[in-house]
């Protein structure tokens, strides 16, 4: 089901979906090389199919991404050639109609954000870069429905899709050595929230008092792939109250 041709530039043209070995104990299924909801939905649909199949017991773990699924498996239980065949069959069973998104019926998670000031030291940068006022940046950032594509980079870090391109902004020239937990940032056309303190190069426009990652919770991440997210502006003193009440 996989063919590879050469296009007129000499680069390879890949036909999706494509199944290939990633390592001696993992298999990668690619559904495309773009960031869009439909490709992403196929990734999670296949993960569910595999979890519900008899392959589940050989699987060590899944890493779903924007457009591909890595399945790490126990090489003493099964081999690539067999797995390729089985996964190929399962892909056939995953009926994804155009425009489908996962968890599309979920209610949006509302993330309270204190924008600007000490909580959002780069809000001015973003506004200047966009040619907008800081209030306009806040209004745009908090009036959009976002969706979680995947988690990665750090525990519970959500890659959110759907940001308005008017407030897109390059990363900081020099990344900060420490970004606080709850920092809400912008990098190019992406926005995200740092669940834990970490180094980071995103433009920080605000901060949420909400705890997004908790090792004692099941699941540990509040924002799972497919979750809808909106940001709700709060005043700085509300931030203090919410942190204090935890």
């Amino acid at each position, binding site marked *: 089901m996989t063919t*590879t041709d050469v296009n007129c530039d000499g*680069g*390879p043209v890949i036909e999706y979906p494509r199944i*290939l*070995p*990633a*390592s*001696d*104990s*993992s298999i*990668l299924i*690619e559904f495309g*090389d*773009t*960031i869009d909801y439909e490709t992403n939905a196929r990734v999670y649909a296949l993960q569910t199919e595999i979890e519900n199949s008899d392959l589940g017991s050989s699987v*060590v*773990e*899944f*890493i*779903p*991404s*924007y*457009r*591909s*699924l*890595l399945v*790490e498996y126990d*090489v*003493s239980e099964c*081999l*690539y*050639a067999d797995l390729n065949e089985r996964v190929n069959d399962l892909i056939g069973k995953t009926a994804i109609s155009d425009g489908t998104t996962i968890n599309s019926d979920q209610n949006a998670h509302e993330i309270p954000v204190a924008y600007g000031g000490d909580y959002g030291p780069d809000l001015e940068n973003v506004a200047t870069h966009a040619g907008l006022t800081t209030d306009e940046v806040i209004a745009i950032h908090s009036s959009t429905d976002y969706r979680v594509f*995947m*988690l*990665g*980079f*750090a*525990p*519970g*870090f959500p*890659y959110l899709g759907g940001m308005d391109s008017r407030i897109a902004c390059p990363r900081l020239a020099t990344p900060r050595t420490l970004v606080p937990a709850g920092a809400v940032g912008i990098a190019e056309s992406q926005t995200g929230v740092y669940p*834990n303190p*970490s180094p980071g190069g995103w433009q920080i426009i605000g901060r949420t008092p909400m705890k997004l*990652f908790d*090792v004692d919770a099941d*699941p*540990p*991440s509040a924002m799972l*792939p497919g979750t809808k997210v909106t940001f709700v502006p709060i005043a700085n003193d509300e931030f203090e109250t919410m942190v204090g009440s935890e």
Partner: protein
Amino acid sequence: MNSFVEVISPGNRLTVQDLGRRGSQRFGVSVSGVLDLAAAVTANRLVGNPATSAMLEATFGGVSLSFNSETRVAVTGAEVNVDVNGFPMPIWETMILPAEAVLTLSIPSTGLYSYISVAGGIDTPIVLNSRSTHVASALGGHEGRILAAGDTLPIGEDIDGQSRPRAGTTAPQSVVPGSYDRERPVRVISAPQYDAFDDDAKSKFFATSFTISNLTDRQGARLDGASIPAIDGKHDIVSDPAFMGAIQVPSDGKPIVLLADRQPTGGYAKIASVIGPDLPNVVQRTPGSEIAFELVGIEEAQELARGFQKSIYKTPLVEPARISSSHLEVDGKTYNVQIVRPTTIEEEMVADGIIYADIRDHAEVAVTVEASHE
């Protein structure tokens, strides 16, 4: 009395690790865990632990530890000199340390990572199904951090002590790094973005003897020596799953072998993946060492991987050799005394309660004492 180990000197970087935090990469959580699977699994087997028990991973030796009570211990991995209370002891071998013993590891002559296992395992809290320390996200281990002098770690209960390997039990030769051929190229399979590199770049990758950089850490082994260009400079890809042994090539063209502390996803093209059996050989090479790669197919890689799994989990340990034996009569009972090897102390002596103190005071000699047929 609860057993514990106290860190007297942590060396370069001492952490609690097990086989890794599995099942949470989908939440953005790194696997972490031991770097050298062969050495770590063997260390646990030598003290009779399940493979999943937590142990200490030392970076470039220089570690000193004390144990409050009698403890079955093994040291594997890098070639270090080990001593207990000042007496030299072997690595890749089961030891039983008396209470209050001080275990010291020198700087290694070859290799980088040492594994110190204790019967019952290091019993720090389980976080998301694992005790492994991931320092960058402050998860697991002891307070999510590198160990410091004065830290005290609980040791799990050593149940079934009598059925655990005896002092002097050694690892099978097939897993001891002395039998690795360090000159041999590291075997890889092609990785998902193999075709993001043209034939010239691939030839260069396989023809180069790279040098392991000083910047190498638990997250990745960084390689100097040649720049491997992607077609049209397209080193950046849409963020994609990352995995142990993946060799990614960022835009400076310098390959990085992703290791235990890698992030679950990454945005650089991956040219190749190191096969599991050759990973110990990669992680144990010190900065400045040379490294070259050789391509194998997936079928061969998986056959080798299965052989490796079998070798590290199933190859029988080597029972201690009996150097000499004699009979001893105490309180009218005849005991069979066997000298196992210098400076090991067997637990049967405790069980039988004879001549133990005398042996401990003269720790050059160790014996097993078994009740003979009466």
